[in-house]
């Protein structure tokens, strides 16, 4: 019997969980603990105990608001966060198998800095680093940097030509950003460091490469100051909800995160991304497509639904998300993930509605259910994130270019 295709699983870590009232749950961490290392390490270790492929860590430059809205002066929700790439670095040396994927914005950051940050995370985790590349543009964000004026995204103005043009430009910049980061990762060949005592040379400079990227927003000369990371190319992840970001994910990412609201929507989105991928000349490259859910999980589905209602009441409004919301039992979720996987998804990124409850339910409830269905690993089969997700260690583009 052929092995069934395995489902890949990631969890998205943010604040006290994704429901705005999650921090008020009796088992939730005290508010100040959200800004300490222990809280994040506990979550990542819990995810690792559940054999998950990777965790993502949310981030953003502006203080949190609801949706894309301007600062809202609300005092009843989690506000304040730590830099995600540094949380990732802090947990890397004290975890051993799970992939660690911080969110880093492409809009205001320097590709040169981002490249060495993720490369160094890959060294600190010995090959488990990824990067969720996120476009900026939230209200008030540009003013934090004062370097450029950007049309601000808002749900009301989303379909105006001005905002659509801005979105297209931001994603083009993001694609350039990822391209520079990827070239810098390859700018050192793996064997560039030679330590040749006879000639006194530490590196073979023929194996260091200028990347000479020139784009609309920036030009970068290279090479990186950091040697090629252990995975060669750490994983690039992109969340996408519509055509422009689908195209970005298809051009630039290794894992696309999408948010179909029902199983029938999957095939169309997957087809669109695959077409964009072919158009970008990447048809032969591996690109995984993950679905997303916000999850409320309890063995008794009525309890999960009741819990969501109770949290909604505490928050003062029903919870909606860009991703579909699942409230039910781990077994029912396992069935749904299996069905959605058959419809064309390679895996899922789950957003626990509350922490620790729903994170624990993913690792101790959902994972065994998937294992019973022969859809999920029983032990880690690789030491790198690329390995867990079935990616080879890639050839270096500059070596290939010379060989050709």
């Amino acid at each position, binding site marked *: 019997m052929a092995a069934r295709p395995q489902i890949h699983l990631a969890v998205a870590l943010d604040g006290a969980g994704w429901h705005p*009232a999650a*921090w008020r*749950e*009796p088992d939730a961490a*005290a*508010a*100040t603990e959200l*800004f*300490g*290392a222990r809280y994040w390490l506990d979550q990542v270790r819990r995810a690792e105990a559940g054999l998950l492929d990777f965790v993502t860590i949310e981030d953003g*430059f502006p*203080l*949190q608001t609801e949706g894309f809205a301007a*600062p809202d002066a*609300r*005092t*009843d*929700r989690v*506000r*304040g*966060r*730590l*830099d995600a*790439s*540094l*949380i990732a*670095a802090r947990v*890397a*040396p*004290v975890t051993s198998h799970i992939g660690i994927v911080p969110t880093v914005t492409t809009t205001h950051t*320097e590709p*040169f800095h981002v490249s*060495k*940050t993720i*490369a*160094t995370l890959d*060294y*600190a985790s*010995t090959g488990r680093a990824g990067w969720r590349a996120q476009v900026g543009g939230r209200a*008030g964000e540009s003013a*934090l*940097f*004062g*370097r450029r004026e950007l049309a601000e995204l808002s749900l009301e103005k989303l379909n105006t030509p001005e905002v659509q043009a801005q979105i297209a430009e931001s994603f083009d910049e993001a694609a350039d950003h990822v391209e520079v980061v990827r070239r810098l990762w390859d700018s050192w060949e793996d064997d560039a460091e030679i*330590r040749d005592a006879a000639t*006194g*040379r*530490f*590196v*073979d*400079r023929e194996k*260091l490469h200028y990347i000479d990227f020139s784009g609309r927003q*920036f*030009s*970068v*000369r290279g*090479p990186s*100051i*950091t*040697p090629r990371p252990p995975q060669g190319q750490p994983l690039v992840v992109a969340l996408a909800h519509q055509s422009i970001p689908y195209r970005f994910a298809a051009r630039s990412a290794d894992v696309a995160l999408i948010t179909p609201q029902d199983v029938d929507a999957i095939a169309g989105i997957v087809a669109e991304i695959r077409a964009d991928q072919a158009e970008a000349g990447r048809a032969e490259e591996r690109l995984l497509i993950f679905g997303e859910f916000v999850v409320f999980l309890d063995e008794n589905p009525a309890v999960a639904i009741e819990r969501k209602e109770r949290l909604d009441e505490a928050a003062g409004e029903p919870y909606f998300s860009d991703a579909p919301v699942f409230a039910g039992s781990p077994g029912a979720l396992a069935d749904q993930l299996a069905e959605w996987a058959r419809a064309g998804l390679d895996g899922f990124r789950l957003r626990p509605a509350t922490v620790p409850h729903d994170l624990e339910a993913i690792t101790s409830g959902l994972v065994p259910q998937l294992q019973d269905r022969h859809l999920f690993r029983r032990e880690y089969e690789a030491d790198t994130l690329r390995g867990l997700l079935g990616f080879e260690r890639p050839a270096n583009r500059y070596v290939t270019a010379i060989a050709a």
Partner: protein
Amino acid sequence: MSQGTHTPPKQVHLAAHFPGVNNTTVWSDPRSGSHIEFDSFRRFAQTAERAGFDFLFLAEGLRLREQNGLIYDLDVVGRPDTFTVLAALAAVTEHLGLAGTINSTFNEPYEVARQFATLDHLSDGRAAWNVVTSWDAFTGENFRRAGYLPQDQRYERARSFLHATRTLFDSWHGDEIAGDKASGTFLAEPRPGAFSIHDAFFDIEGQFNVPRSPQGRPVIFQAGDSDEGREFAAAEADAIFSRHGTKDAGQAFYADVKGRMAKYGRDRDQLKVLPAATFVLADTDAEANELADVIRHQQVSGQTAIRFLEQVWNRDLSGYDPDGPLPEIDPDLGEHTIARGRASVRMNRDPLAVANEYRALAEAKGYSIRELIINVTSRQNFIGSPRTIAETINDYVQADASDGFILVPHITPDGLGEFADKVVPLLQEKGVFRTEYEGTTLRDNLGLRPLAAGESSEEVAA
């Protein structure tokens, strides 16, 4: 003191600089390990912490150095990202301060403030920042803005940058997070972190999104030695990373910098003067001297000597024999520089005068190019038996030539071990070095006053 008791001796502060990308780092030694893999940083940091050092220090470089238009390949090349390494080290150390050099030219205050505030949270109050400037278009080729900043504005931007980050660090006062689950009050006030900064360099406003960190802000280091740099340190810094290795020069520098503090209303003990120092340890002073010579020859190979000479002559000298005499041709005084990405080359020096000095010395002593360079570039600061080195260090500190030293071993990552095992216990015996960490934060361990909520040091002074 008033009742006839002796003044307790000054305490020595020690820190460890991870060996850098220059010729003092001997990569050819068989004991030399990776400069990139995290395990090297872990071992180095854990040795420093075992010895009770105040902090570990990482330098930064944002472009690989070049000479004659080619990437310089004789020294260690490459390094990992500073913030990422420090945050990872927070996981494998408990007390050691985590100090990083971060450039104020190719970064923005909002992002750097977030990174340092985060590092301070994730290390429970152990973050420190060495603020440096750069201006060259060469480094700028790796960044969005390229070489935008005129050289004469780099200190102004650095000062403005530091003020902007101070404002951001102080924008949360420490009492904003109520976290009352019952009433649903996460924030005690609706607009935490509000800031507005408008000056010649920055035009930024909004709400900072990292709550106040354990130290309030990172410990601030300054490394420039110019008059402007000293003034900047006296006004703003918690520690100064100086380069005055001799006792006389150290005392003059120490008196000068600390003397500038009063006009800013600051106490002299609120700025630590910490020169970088190299060392060679052996069982006896004689053995240490011999070993120092061997290491100097490792540090200055024939090719390295030629490259050094090229930096003065500012021309390609690759055809010269390092074991032969100095070139008869004079230095090239043109505007271009042969060695790009090096901060120190040709600054404040008259190349022709230096060349003539070198020629006179070589002639008098019969030096080849290599022997000359070995003799005109820095010898190790401390050479001797553990006792000699412990006594020298203590003597410098008690004589106000410094408040301690940032030690730079020549071997990665284990070059600190012998110092930790042999010199530190002697300093402890003298009662001038801690046997356990005094406090929980780097500020505590450096003897710096804690900052009250929302209080920058300038406001303390006012």
